[in-house]
């Protein structure tokens, strides 16, 4: 039989836990509301895009859905927000080309490099990007993708 004393202290412990958990919940709710208000405030000057990155391995790529980027952001800016990117800017072309994403770098010996794609909403197809990532302006709800694959067979296969 549990002693009354033990029960009293167990009740006290549960009371402390309940009160503390409630106040921590309240804290996170307030923070959540702050972020909701902030995102509403920034809605006029931001947009959401979906970015897919496939690193060329057997596994599926990574989706970065609903990535919030400033209005007027380019593919290069947006990719930089979700991944560690290295790129080279070609001034004669005015274009920046990706050298590596998250440590996966273009490889001449293997004949592999990064390609970018955008989702064409009228034909429901991935279209291969034809300009530098810094030259492709994003719009609200755009879906874009990066794939790391061989350039020895042309055209490269779209993201699957």
């Amino acid at each position, binding site marked *: 039989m549990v002693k009354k004393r033990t029960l009293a202290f167990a009740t006290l*412990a549960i009371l402390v836990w309940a009160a503390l958990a409630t106040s921590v919940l309240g804290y996170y709710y*307030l923070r959540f509301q702050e972020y909701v208000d902030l995102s509403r405030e920034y809605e006029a000057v931001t947009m959401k895009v979906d970015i897919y990155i496939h690193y060329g391995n057997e596994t599926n790529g990574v989706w970065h859905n609903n990535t919030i980027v400033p209005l007027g952001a380019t593919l290069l800016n947006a990719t930089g927000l979700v991944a560690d990117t290295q790129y080279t800017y070609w001034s004669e072309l005015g274009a920046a080309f990706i050298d590596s994403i998250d440590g996966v770098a273009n490889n001449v010996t293997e004949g592999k490099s990064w390609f970018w794609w955008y989702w064409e909403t009228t034909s429901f197809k991935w279209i291969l990007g034809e300009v530098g990532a810094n030259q492709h302006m994003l719009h609200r709800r755009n879906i874009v993708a990066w794939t790391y694959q061989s350039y020895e067979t042309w055209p490269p296969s779209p993201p699957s």
Partner: protein
Amino acid sequence: MPLLSVRKLALLSVLTAVSLGIQLTPRPPNVEFTSLFTFLVGILYGSLIGGFFGGFVMFVNGFLSPWGFGGFMMPFQIVGMAIIGIAGGFYKRCTVGVHSAQVSVEVAVLGAFLTLLYDIITNVGVAVPPALSGVPWHIALIAAFSTGAPFSLVHIISNIALFGSGFIPLIKALQRVPGGEALWSKKELLHSQR
């Protein structure tokens, strides 16, 4: 106030100085030793002196704290800490002995509860200025409790650790000082004879 022997008075003065010294030393927010010392004083000297001790330490802290002048918060801090001292006096009356692991657990739970009570009282103090400036009371209180939650979490967890691990060694050491009265040993003897 009950009359105290010179040794008891000296010990109380040292404990006050130690508490104030730690209280005024820059440290991580809400990690404090005053509540443990206040609880101990309540046990050693009774509820009245324990309550007075806690209130006094927080009164001085209100003026000299490295976080700045206590202002509206000070009376709430005084009341909150005084309650911890009073609770120490009450706990002394109903304890089961000093050496058992049960006491450590009980004191840790009690420490958590008293710290929660202190935080609730001081959070009411945080809500006073916005409430006086026109914010509805319930909004001011909810905001104070919610924004104070991470601090309460640190406060309660650190006090569970302090009360649970520090109480028995400290009470054992302190009970020897007032002149061999060994309050807690007597208490334990009393319980073992029941």
